[in-house]
């Protein structure tokens, strides 16, 4: 994109910003059908939504629902521009990183007020996460459940590792069973494991674990499991405190000292690198969430299993994130939007998502379908729930978390790549993140 194009975008923003996006209700199309658009970032769920909305339109013949899928990498940049220019979809998914700014900006329909009778049917953690200023700003659509460890059965058996009971400890090597296991699971081109003499970290053909700059699957949980925190109660960043720094140091050492995880140069900018390595049979333990369950089930050509999170000094602590379907407050199709949102928040509407195994619905009554689907495929999903632990670390919060993460992520890249000492990098990242919050 050249500068001229940026200028054109700016001009378009100006022209569009000068217009009031909210107008009188759009008249229905000539055939009397109102079309409501829904923007999501997940192909698997989009496919389930198509089926769900087909049923919705059968029950509501005057409303058609169009599902638009955008890749996650571009999702929020495009959404922000579209909201600014008044061309956003009628309903769009939001996660914790970006919802605060849109809620504070008055861009979202107040669901707590519009659908108060439905709130009791939704996962309480999701309702709590997206309640801001005393009201709920979207219908909880998905909840990721707890983070787990997917493992390659042949690899762990060959190494004699039990993935169900691994513990890590940054200060007491005797209490750390995870690092020795990860070393046994990491192999070079000559077949030597990372705990053997002569191991060549430059020719690794099988990684033990997916340590990397992955907020949800990796570093939030490690921080929580070491009793640290990422944000203070006022939403400012607080990850330089000693326990958080220890967790980061442990992860960075897994990559750069012990070489049991892929180099950060491979994972910093390719968010799917580790998942692909696992699917290609080049990684033994892959810590991730429900959002990768379908991908692994579809893509793995080997026997695999699910273990609970690797436990830290403070036990198994997971971040539990949810996604909401938010109503566009500027859309003229408010009544139709609320009907669609009510459907998404109902047991029947959400059952398509769970019943297809695409994701774990945040509608409590629809979650059984998800478990049943995966049980039918021989997959044990209990570790996504209480069997995987009950302790959690608060999910990202605050209206400017997205801006903060834009500031600290490049510095995290250097920290994970080992180019900057952990303490120094975390201090710079925290300062940059907090500056972006102001």
């Amino acid at each position, binding site marked *: 994109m050249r500068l001229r194009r940026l*200028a054109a975008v*700016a001009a378009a923003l100006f022209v569009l910003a000068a217009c009031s996006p909210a107008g009188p209700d759009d008249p229905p199309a000539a055939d009397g059908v109102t079309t409501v658009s829904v923007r999501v970032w997940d192909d698997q769920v989009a496919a389930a939504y198509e089926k769900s909305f087909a049923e919705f339109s059968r029950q509501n013949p005057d409303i058609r629902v169009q599902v638009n899928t955008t890749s996650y990498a571009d999702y929020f940049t495009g959404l922000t521009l579209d909201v*600014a220019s008044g061309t956003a979809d009628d309903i769009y998914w939001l996660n914790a990183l970006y919802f605060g700014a849109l809620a504070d900006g008055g861009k979202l329909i107040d669901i707590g007020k519009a659908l108060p009778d439905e709130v009791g049917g939704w996962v309480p953690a999701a309702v709590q996460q997206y309640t801001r200023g005393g009201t709920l700003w979207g219908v909880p659509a998905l909840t990721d459940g707890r983070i787990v460890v997917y493992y390659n059965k042949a690899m762990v058996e060959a190494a004699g590792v039990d993935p169900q009971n691994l513990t890590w400890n940054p200060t007491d090597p005797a209490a750390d069973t995870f690092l020795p296991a990860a070393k046994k699971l990491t192999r070079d081109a000559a077949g030597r494991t990372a705990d053997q003499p002569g191991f060549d970290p430059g020719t690794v053909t099988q990684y033990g674990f997916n340590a990397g700059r992955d907020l949800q699957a990796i570093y939030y949980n490690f921080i929580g499991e070491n009793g640290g925190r990422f944000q203070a109660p006022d939403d400012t960043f607080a990850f330089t405190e000693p326990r958080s720094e220890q967790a980061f140091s442990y992860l960075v050492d897994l990559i750069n000292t012990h070489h049991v995880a892929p180099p950060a*140069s491979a994972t910093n900018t*390719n968010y799917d690198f580790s998942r692909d390595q696992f699917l290609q049979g080049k990684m033994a333990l892959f810590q991730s969430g429900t959002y990768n369950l379908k991908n692994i089930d579809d893509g793995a050509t080997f026997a695999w299993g699910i273990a609970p999170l690797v436990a830290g000094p403070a036990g198994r602590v997971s971040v539990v994130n949810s996604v909401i379907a938010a109503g566009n407050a500027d859309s003229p199709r408010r009544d139709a939007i609320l009907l669609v949102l009510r459907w998404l928040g109902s047991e029947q509407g959400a059952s398509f998502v769970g019943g297809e195994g695409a994701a774990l619905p945040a509608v409590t009554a629809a979650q059984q379908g998800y478990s049943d689907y995966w049980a039918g495929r021989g997959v044990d999903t209990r570790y996504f729930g209480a069997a995987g632990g009950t302790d959690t670390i608060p999910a990202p919060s605050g209206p400017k978390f997205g801006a903060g993460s834009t*500031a600290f992520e490049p510095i995290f890249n250097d920290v994970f790549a080992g180019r900057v000492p952990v303490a120094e990098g975390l201090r710079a990242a925290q300062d940059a993140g907090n500056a972006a919050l102001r």
Partner: protein
Amino acid sequence: MRSRDTRTAYLLLAPSLFGVAAFLVLPILVVVWLALQRWDLIGPRTFVGLDNVVAVAQDGRFARSLLVTAVFVAIVIPAQTVLGLGAALLLNRGLRGSAVFRVLYVLPWICAPLALGVVWRWILAPTDGALNALIGHRIEWLSDPVLALPSVAAVTVWTQVGYVALFFVAGLRAIPSTLLEAALLDGAGPWQTFRLITLPLLRPTLFFVLVTGVISTFQVFDSVYALTPKGGPQGVTDVVAGRIYYEAFESRAVGQAAVMAVVLFVLLVAITLVQQRWFSRRTTYDLST
């Protein structure tokens, strides 16, 4: 009569003038106006005067991105100009297959820079990348702070060489053969002919290639974004257009991004004026013998 001619002229120019006003002048004015506002794209806009200018001046990242861009331009422009001229001289010799090579050279320039960036990212990937597999060594082309900028510059040069060569070929063909023959008769060798006849007469082409090259390289975004997103390792590929993008659409500080855009605009106008003055004293457009 004269005023009717004037009216007709303006009437005929009206479509173009509308285009210039709507897509050039208006966006520039809007960017200047945005530079005086605080706006996060979502909430209301607030007039803040010169606060954004002060914030940008105090933000070391913008100064760094200007420096990165200057180094990037200093690598790309000489390389693409010399390689483009070399390719043009070879193509102009009318050897067999020249037409095919002319098309091949231009292909990278025709392709979408973002797509090319993605392809090159695969080629230069440290793990499972094609280049590392070929040479048998694991080199972090795009994530090593020392190598990242030269690697991105190399991809940019590769993309642009064909385009530059195309203009030089046209410039070489515009040189009257009689001048070259006269030089030959006077006993000039190939190097003397090139230095004393060809190169001076190519100055109009050189001027065009340098001006457009410098402007487009200062504004480079897509390929750098695709190869090294977020400014690359330790910000070594954080070019100005990228910084403007991150500031506007990721940090949502539209006002500060607008200030950066204005600074870049002024800088480019200044550089272009300097180039124009330099070439105007040394260039002839009269190739008649």
